[in-house]
């Protein structure tokens, strides 16, 4: 088939316009694939954050809200649950383990989580992986802290360093707990979850820094030394939420019903997987909008190509007449234009794919540091290839428009251009 070679040489001859057209298609394909990439990676990352937990329990609010603040450290709890309520449920026979979570403080922009040592034993992420330490170990002392990998890395902390916890969630606020510094007792390995950006202390540690505070401000004239604190009863009065592991999965729904109907205080128990699904459903509209936008951008890219091919049609009538004179059939003329369009789209799609990986390489560390979202660089998925196939098919179809016009004209013109 001489037409493919002709189409290729014809495009090379117009390399400037052809290159711009290819670039426009490439950028649009990058966007289309990129949106899909971020969507699936975000989902995978969310789904990897929590596993092995049967129920998450918090004060009664929305399921998604509870999931977001307890697991993903997004947003805040509206109210706490009492220590008694927590223990009541934790001591039930169906319960194998619990992880208490106490949120509300921060350290230089990173959330502080008060928890128990069970956290290091029972927390699971990314399937069945447990937390591991790059150095040190779980907190032992009242003023010990365990840092997530990103906290240690971005603040440059090492084992044994002293850190001061801010009150509330403000960035480096002046209302900090300067008189009670914490010592770094352990640093966790990178997990690719919000754990990396969390400062962990014991529940008693949280109580200790709040012992001389009331209603969000320091009580005037009341300072308690660290030594006296150690002698105090630092059992917390309330926590924010807790994760529950059950002896048997079969008890999940019974237990959930029991907690949701708990008489002493209004509680909410959620199944992480179900709440996550609700979250996806909620985000479905936004995802669809984003996908629709990128599809339109691809359509714009193809429109650019259509304009290029249609604009060249008139000045190429002579070329068509020459081809006809040496024996080309009108169908060859049609094929020439369709091939040009297909080649342009295919090149654009491949360049777009390459561009996606270039962008990923550059953006990966930035997105990881800023949003805690790890974009894995993996070979294109079957879906990616299907998308590229569809784009090329659309390019083929778009090429049929100028091709049909050229076909009609070359039928009418024959070997002489009649103007």
């Amino acid at each position, binding site marked *: 088939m001489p037409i493919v070679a002709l189409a290729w040489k014809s495009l090379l001859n117009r390399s400037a316009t052809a290159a711009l057209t290819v670039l426009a298609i490439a950028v649009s394909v990058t966007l289309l694939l990129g949106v899909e990439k971020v969507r699936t990676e975000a989902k995978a990352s969310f789904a990897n954050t929590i596993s092995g937990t049967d129920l998450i329990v918090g004060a009664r609010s929305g399921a998604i809200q509870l999931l977001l603040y307890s697991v993903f450290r997004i947003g805040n709890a509206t109210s706490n649950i009492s220590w008694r309520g927590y223990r009541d449920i934790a001591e039930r026979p169906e319960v194998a383990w619990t992880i208490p979570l106490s949120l509300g403080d921060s350290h230089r922009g990173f959330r502080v989580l008060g928890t128990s040592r069970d956290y290091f034993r029972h927390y699971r992420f990314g399937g069945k992986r447990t937390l591991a330490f790059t150095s040190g170990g779980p907190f032992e002392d009242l003023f010990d802290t365990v840092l997530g990998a990103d906290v240690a890395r971005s603040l440059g902390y090492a084992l044994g360093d002293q850190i001061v916890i801010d009150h509330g969630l403000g960035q480096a606020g002046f209302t900090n707990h300067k008189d009670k510094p914490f010592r770094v007792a352990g640093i966790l390995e990178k997990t690719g979850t919000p754990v990396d950006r969390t400062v962990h202390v014991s529940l008693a540690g949280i109580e200790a820094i709040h012992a001389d505070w009331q209603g969000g401000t320091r009580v005037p004239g009341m300072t308690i030394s660290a030594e006296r604190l150690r002698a105090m009863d630092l059992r917390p009065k309330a926590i924010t939420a807790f994760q529950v592991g059950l002896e048997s999965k079969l008890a999940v729904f019974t237990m959930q019903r029991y907690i949701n109907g708990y008489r002493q205080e209004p509680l909410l128990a959620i199944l992480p997987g179900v709440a996550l699904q609700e979250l996806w459903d909620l985000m479905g509209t936004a995802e669809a909008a984003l996908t629709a936008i990128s599809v339109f951008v691809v359509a714009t890219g193809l429109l650019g190509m259509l304009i290029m091919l249609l604009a060249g049609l008139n000045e190429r009538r002579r070329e068509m007449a*020459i081809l006809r004179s040496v*024996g080309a059939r*009108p169908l060859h003329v049609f094929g020439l234009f369709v091939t040009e369009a297909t080649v342009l789209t295919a090149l654009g799609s491949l360049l777009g794919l390459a561009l996606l990986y270039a962008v990923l390489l550059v953006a990966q560390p930035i997105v990881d540091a800023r949003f805690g979202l790890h974009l894995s660089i993996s070979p294109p998925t079957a879906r990616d290839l299907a998308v590229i196939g569809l784009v090329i098919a659309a390019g083929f179809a778009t090429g049929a428009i100028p091709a049909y016009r050229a076909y009609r004209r070359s039928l009418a013109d024959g070997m002489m251009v009649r103007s």
Partner: protein
Amino acid sequence: MIRVCDVSFRWRRQDPLVLEIADLEVAAGERAFIKGPSGSGKTTLLNLLGGVAVPEAGRILVMDTDISALPGARRDAFRADHIGFIFQLFNLLPYLSLIDNVLLPCRFSPTRRQRALARATSLEAEARRLLGHMELDTDALASHPVSRLSMGQQQRVAAARALIGAPELVIADEPTSALDAEVRRSFLDLLFREVAEAGSALLFVSHDASLEGAFDRTIALVEINRAAPPG
């Protein structure tokens, strides 16, 4: 070689006839000059002979084949196999090299390709041979885009393309009208020599009566085309 019998043609049903020829014959190897001012139906006649247009009535026999009776794809294949064309201007595809322009008919016609290969070791060698006969320095010109060639050079490349694979018929449509007198003369000489060597018949269409002395026979289109406006 060519026989046109009682052919009439109009572009569209509601248009008047533009061509009506009772009888036109060109013998094999003959060099015929078709004379006619613009509007006398030259373009139409060439489209009919090339099988790009189909007459409303009558028969067009090229090498005893009634091309007006062939289906479209077969007419295109017939043209590629047996007819070489040279036009007035812009004969070359700007994005193809000198050699590739000459070889275009061989891309569409296996017959022409085989005949070209029978004369030389490769298609490119045959193209170079013909270009050499047209007194073009292929080595010096091959590196330039064909659009940079002079008008006279472009027409000689077009002649080489029309002649490659030795088609039985070469149709030239005003190939010299854009050339100045001296170049025109040498172009004609080269064309005649090569047409003779290939054994092709030559149908040379022009309004320039000063050329007709060089041909075996002159056909005045105004006289044979009954649909032509008088003049």
